[in-house]
């Protein structure tokens, strides 16, 4: 029985991700497609929101993965600083642009929904503001990776930024709530209380879409991490001449 950490060895990592990726792609694309088609074509309109309710099938899963993507970077940063597993640093690097994309999708779909429903594309609501701040944190993290050429130093510094940034991202979230009362409705799927405000008719395709987005995120991140590992190998080969 191998220790869990051994799967972060680059060779083993390439091995198991190569085998797992086709399945992840099938799950990610299949479930996302199923959730979206079900949600878009086989559910009724909401009695107040009309057909705009359907944007929830993209908006909520994207927002979910935007936050979890940052959390993934935080965990990867901790593992890199504690255990110095090179692959985890690369996974953090690989996840950042995907997470940023999810954040932007969340913001844009929210604006498209908000225009007819709230009568405005944008409001300085705490939730919206926190997402914009999250996008800034992603940008800073990506920019720092790009700016430093020494890979080990870049991994160290970006990991520290990710950890300190997480603390401040959470602080900003609560500071923003203090600063302005919200327009955004409460969460539709509160995990803690279990009092869903979404009917099963909408919830089942939404849940499928959420799971689909999760696998899609993992698949894209792993493809990007594999590319990074290969790029490292090419560099080593070039250095050998």
């Amino acid at each position, binding site marked *: 029985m191998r220790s869990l950490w051994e799967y972060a060895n680059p060779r083993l990592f390439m091995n198991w991700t190569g085998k797992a990726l086709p399945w992840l792609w099938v799950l990610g694309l299949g479930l996302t497609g199923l959730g979206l088609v079900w949600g878009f074509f086989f559910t009724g309109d909401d009695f107040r929101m009309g057909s705009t309710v359907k944007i929830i099938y993209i908006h909520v899963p994207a927002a979910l993965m935007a936050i979890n993507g940052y959390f993934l970077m935080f965990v990867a940063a901790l593992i890199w600083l504690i255990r110095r597993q090179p692959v985890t640093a690369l996974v953090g690097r690989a996840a950042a642009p995907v997470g940023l994309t999810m954040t932007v999708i969340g913001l844009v779909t929210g604006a498209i929904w908000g225009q007819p429903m709230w009568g405005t594309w944008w409001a300085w609501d705490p939730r919206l503001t926190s997402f914009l701040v999250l996008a800034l*944190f992603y940008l800073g993290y990506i920019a*720092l990776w790009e700016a430093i050429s020494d890979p080990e130093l870049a991994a160290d510094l970006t990991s*520290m930024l990710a950890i300190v940034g997480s603390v401040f991202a959470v602080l900003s979230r609560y500071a923003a709530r203090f600063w302005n009362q919200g327009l955004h409705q409460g969460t539709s799927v509160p995990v803690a209380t279990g009092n869903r405000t979404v009917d099963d008719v909408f919830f089942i395709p939404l849940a499928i879409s959420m799971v689909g987005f999760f696998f899609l995120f993992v698949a894209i991140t792993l493809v990007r991490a594999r590319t990074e590992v290969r790029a490292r190998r090419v560099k080593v080969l070039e250095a050998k001449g």
Partner: protein
Amino acid sequence: MIALLLRDLRLAIRTGGGFGLGLAFFAVIVIMTPFAVGPSPAELSALAPGILWLAALLAVLLTLDRLFALDAEDGTLEQLALTLPLEAVIFAKSLSHWLTTGAVLALLGPLLGILLSLPVSGMLPLFLALLLGTPALSFIGAFGASLTVAVKRGGLLLSLLVLPLYIPTLIFGASVASRGAAGLDYTQPLALLSALSLGCVAAMPFAAAAALRASLR
């Protein structure tokens, strides 16, 4: 450590650059504001706390890249790291940065507030907010500066990294100033702002030292 603090203070005041420029920048932004938003006193006094806070933020940001860059270039930083714990070096440098920017900005802010029609009752809260809030800016900035020591011409990158970290401080600080100017009770945001500053003063030198150690390795 005290010797280092005094050395940095002397350097900041005597050599042309950081110290005076930051303050001049602060004053210029405040003076430019009426040209951008119009001279009406009612509008200006509504904007004053926010503008003063933004200007202070930018003035602090402008002087940050000098915090470690010069000492890292000529090797002084490595020598300091040999004689003192790096955390203490960063603490002394951040403190001297605050004394030459934040503390002076706190004194200057209410005066420049006159130009923006800040009500007299709003001057004490603005002073308190700047005095208690700017330590957070200097110490968070030290962390940002230590991340970008290894980057040549890292000034723009530094602002992208540091400004998002300033958001909570800005929210609480500007809220103290604007509540004070409106004659409302401002003790709650002031307490939160002070807590934030104290937390940053306590924790940031360690984060910055970790980053500097990686860069000096």
